[in-house]
């Protein structure tokens, strides 16, 4: 089973975690000002790269905190984990 290094708890089994999709997608500052196209982009469209991907995880069966990770979607290698609010480390190629 894959180990995911929670930035608070250290490495734990993947089954303790919940996936949250792409990281760093900010809620629009003024949603009512968006066009339909912009709103669709916010609601439905996400990056889906084959390679490094910044994404959110929740340690739902542990400390229950959300954090971010950069993971290679081809190998499933976790290239970096960092706490919510911290900037993305320079691992994206």
């Amino acid at each position, binding site marked *: *089973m894959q180990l995911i290094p929670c930035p608070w708890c250290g490495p734990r089994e993947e*089954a303790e975690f919940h*996936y949250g999709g792409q990281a760093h997608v900010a809620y629009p500052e003024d949603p009512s000002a968006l066009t339909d196209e912009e709103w669709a982009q916010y609601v439905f469209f996400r990056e*889906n790269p*084959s390679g490094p991907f910044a994404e959110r995880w929740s340690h739902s069966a542990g400390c229950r905190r959300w954090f971010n990770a950069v993971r290679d*979607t081809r190998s499933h290698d976790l290239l970096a984990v960092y706490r919510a609010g911290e900037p993305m480390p320079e691992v994206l190629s």
Partner: protein
Amino acid sequence: MTSPAQPPGAHLPEHPDFLWENPEPKASYDVVIVGGGGHGLATAYYLAKVHGITNVAVLEKGWLAGGNMARNTTIIRSNYLWDESSGIYEHSLKLWEGLEEDLGYPILFDQRGVLNLAHSLQDVRDSVRRVNANRLNGIDAEWVDPAGVKEICPIVNVSPDVRYPVLGATYQPRAGIAKHDYVAWGYARAAHAMGVDLIQNCEVTGLETAGGRITAVQTSRGRIAAGKVALCAAGHSSVLAKMAGIRLPLASHPLQALVSELLEPVHPTVVMSNAVHVYVSQAHKGELVMGAGIDSYNGYGQRGSFHIIEQQMSAALELFPVFARAHLLRTWAGIVDVSPDASPIVGLTPVGGLYLNCGWGTGGFKATPGVGDCFAHTIAHDKPHPFNEPFTLERFTTGALVDEHGAAAVAH
């Protein structure tokens, strides 16, 4: 011992005739189809057969039908909820019913029926609603109670004292399975015979456009000019579309499946369960074929996590206690392109001459003939076929979604 007079294997019979050749790519084609899986091959076949367009290449980065076409659980059904879905899935099922004759090739299409189990009151309500919707669309569907489930598939445990008891099921008698490899080979053989070039080990690395129109594809085997380009790349659709500057609302996930060792015939139909996350049929050869839900994370690695298999096995054992002594032979994963409303995206794009067929997620195999026919029509006429007209990319902006999370069953 004396050395053999002939090289090893010389006494064996000749290799049977190849079903298709492996031509070098030409410098240009009228239509280039990216992805040599079921959908790509079927699209090429109907382009040639129905529309007389034969200057066509199917580009496959690996070997023909070695992606999701080789990895799916071969379930064919058309019992989706909405009218839009009924249109394309039932069109596909009708084509399946005549496909063996059409291709002149055996595909072991076997209409053994599918049971979609209900395990909660909400499941029951949704299922009965779906049966009614199917019937209004002329699709065979019935609601069966637990005793009826037992009658159709005697090995299902319908005892009330399990964690998720079977409260009934929808049943589509015309549903079934087919031999996925034979389907691909049948389409490939027939398309090749009409002049389509099937080009393997040819990965698309770029899409060229000029004046808002597609002009060529760059590949690992050189540049190929194209009048039109049709994407049939399933899990890799996002990567390809991005080469033309198009963002897709897709997430690529691993979807795992597995087979048991070969067993005597014990399972006469197909059983699917949304609630406990497993679907099972028994292949003609005798192995039990089971699928799981998707792994939660995005992934392109064609493998998933073991705990998903564990959950799937525990669900299968509760439904089918008779499986307890079966041995797991092999597990694998394919990369499925999941869309926000569990419906596909089939149609035009903002780039002229570039067409999109993706977002089938976990359920693309059943659509192979239907979408091949409709996508070929879309490419030939530069206009969607009525059956794929609702499945535009624009629906995510207009809000005209086709929400099939219930009928798409297990995996979304």
